[in-house]
């Protein structure tokens, strides 16, 4: 219990540190958001007035403390560009991105783990070669290009899927799932490659272990042996999967842009284009928090899979 508490506290510390670094870096960008809001024709006086009105003329440390104080009270602030409430933006976009990442993550696990296990069990057989080809393609194909190819194939060619856009659940399960299929495949394929190779390597190592050999010699069933093997082999896979889950929020930025999905990553990209400081900081912090939560869950799973680590 204390270990979990310690991990939560250290995660909070990381969040605070990230927020400070982010705030400093974002404010180091030379272009004022006032230029984006007021346009290229705005005079220097207009720019100064905008900055004064929005508190951008204050020292960065004062701006940070003011923002952090608001966050403690649940107020993430307002967008400098369109004055929207950032908490509302995040509450509207986070579920979209989270769903995309979860579908992609599930897709990656469902394909990668069995593929990795099979290729470890059948080393240098056709299934192993196939898994290697899938992995090589998965890590080699850029996500944005894969997305475009999937649109060309699945939407323009076959007409089975929409070319882009997000259809909410309220519009029906089928159109919703169709709208999420190509983006999820696009985002998940890279992690199929990573996780399947890690699974293969890890399962292959365990298969060589003495206890597996002894289990076989004792006549244990293949199913029972597989359970023992997985229990021992999955620890590194869980770690990689957790990292992948966090990284997916970053790659979602590309996928959401290609498939025009109004998720949080796309909101972040637009905020970067518009120099919307507060939106950038808040969204990146949410992504960081997701990353930390995923790693926390991985830690707990790790302890469950390998109780020695708890000791």
């Amino acid at each position: 219990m204390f270990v979990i508490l310690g991990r939560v506290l250290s995660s909070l510390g990381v969040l605070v540190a990230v927020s400070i670094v982010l705030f400093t870096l974002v404010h180091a960008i030379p272009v004022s958001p006032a230029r984006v809001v007021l346009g290229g024709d705005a005079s220097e006086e207009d720019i100064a007035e905008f900055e004064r009105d929005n508190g951008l003329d204050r020292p960065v440390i004062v701006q940070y403390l003011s923002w952090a104080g608001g966050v403690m009270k649940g107020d993430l602030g307002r967008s400098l560009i369109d004055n929207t409430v950032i908490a509302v933006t995040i509450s509207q976009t986070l579920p979209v991105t989270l769903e995309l990442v979860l579908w992609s993550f599930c897709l990656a696990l469902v394909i990668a783990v069995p593929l990795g296990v099979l290729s470890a069990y059948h080393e240098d057989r056709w299934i192993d070669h196939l898994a290697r080809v899938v992995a090589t393609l998965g890590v080699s194909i850029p996500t944005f290009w894969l997305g475009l190819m999937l649109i060309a194939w699945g939407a323009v060619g076959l007409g089975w899927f929409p070319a882009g856009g997000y259809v909410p659940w309220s519009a029906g399960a089928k159109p919703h799932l169709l709208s999420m299929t190509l983006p999820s495949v696009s985002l998940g394929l890279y992690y199929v490659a990573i996780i399947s190779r890690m699974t293969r390597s890890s399962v292959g190592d365990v298969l060589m272990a003495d206890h597996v050999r002894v289990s076989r010699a004792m006549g244990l069933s293949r199913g029972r042996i597989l359970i023992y093997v997985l229990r021992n082999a999955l620890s590194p896979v869980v770690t990689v999967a957790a990292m992948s889950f966090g990284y997916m929020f970053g790659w979602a930025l590309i996928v959401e842009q290609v498939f025009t999905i109004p998720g949080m990553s796309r909101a972040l990209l637009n905020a970067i284009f518009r120099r919307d400081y507060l939106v950038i900081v808040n969204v990146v912090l949410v992504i960081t928090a997701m990353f930390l939560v995923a790693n926390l869950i991985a830690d707990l799973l790790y302890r469950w899979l390998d109780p020695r680590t708890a000791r």
Partner: protein
Amino acid sequence: MTDLNRRLLLKSAALAAGLDLIRIPGAFAQDGTLNIALPNNPSTLDPIQTSNHDAMAISNAIFENLLEVDLDGNVVPSLAHKLPVINDEATRFTFDLRDDVVFQNGAKFTAEDVKYSYEYMLDPKNRSVRRTLFAPIKEIVIESPTRIVFNLSQPYRPWLQYMTKFMGIFPKGSREAKGDDAFKLAPADLGTGPGVFVTWQPDSHIELKRNPNYWRKGVPAWSRVMARIVPEDATRLAYLMTGQAHIISSPPPRDFERLKTTPGIQTGSKVAIGGMWFMQTNTKRAPFDDVNFRKAVSCAIDRKSIAKDVFYGLLDATATPAPTGVSYYNAEADKAVGYDPEKAKAFLAKSKYADKAEFELLVPSIPYLFDAKDGALVMQSQLAKIGIQMKITPMEQPQILTRAIAGTQVACLLPLMAPSDPTFIIQICFTNNQIMSKSSGYTNPELDAAIQESYKYTDAARLDPVLKKIQAILVEDCPNIFLGFVGVANAWRAEVKGFKPNTGLTMWIRDVSLG
């Protein structure tokens, strides 16, 4: 094929048909919804603040002005009954207004609303981004509910063009009642236009519905507009191909030729007088403080090959601030600083930087209107052929503008979509106390006089000679490098009727119907 495989295939087909997966329902809605795809996410829909041309495609369907640009590029009446009566000094503009217009909120449109809207925009404390463009408006006088007079401090021809694009009329008192945020984010029932604002989900879509009380009878033919924000070129194209969008703006140049022969797709492009692409060079900074160096750069760039090979014909290549197809195009001026490698070498040899011919060019890293990076790379190779080393520095457009406005850049590539007035860019770049004056560091009393003279004229007979003279002055001093004019391009599905590219906006949707 074995029986097993055949059976499997048949089962799969039946399953797919059962699940209705063979083809998604046609996005060409039967309910009269017009789907359009725009690349940029608007930052505001407020008609006195919009600077993004995709946003204007929406805001100009909600708000209207006294005049508008028709599909052939002419300024025609809109909320005004006819074009204004102008006095001999061209300082008094009398507009007769339509008497049959009501706002979307049901209120009758009168001259009071026009005066209120313009005075609100002109008030410096309201920080309209386009206020300076209307600065010569000295006084607005209401003569009757349907007649209003604008008195200007000086002849100022371009302001009628600016009116078609940079302003919209809203009800008297609406700013105080609704607040600026309503205009910016949710301008429901605030305009007189054919589209009534319904919803805006940032990064996703903007929805308009038909204005049932619209003053033009039988217009619009659509019941709803769904404007999808699709920044990725290829995805926007896929939206068109799959029917998810009926009309798209800014089709990628490389695909434009192919689209022309694609069944079920129509295309159109028009050179926009305001769509200027140029290299803004700073005449106060080396090496562009030497006119010979500037001319060497200008003569070394083969604009026509860039237009053909990089922009696939969507760029009208010219070395002067005039499209080649307009009556005031000065061919001699174009030739004087147009592509000529030998002349370029001669100018470079005369330049004081002949031994150290190098400079840095800032290039927009994120496309605005079009992607300029490929064009910059071609220019780099063309300049290298005469011995000029150009270093390309990618930078975001706002950052480039900031530097240009401060006059700290050496050279930058600027694509702008200005109003269709021939002096707009020249005015803001090469006359004193303008927003881009420092970016060029160049002024010329002779040029100032010519620009002021041009403001007096609206007829081609008197205006064209002055505009040609302006081009000749600019070619002589070559304060920057003009590259060409960008065409407004659209692609749309064959079912769409009544649509043509409009040089005033990226997309004009009012008169579109679904066949």
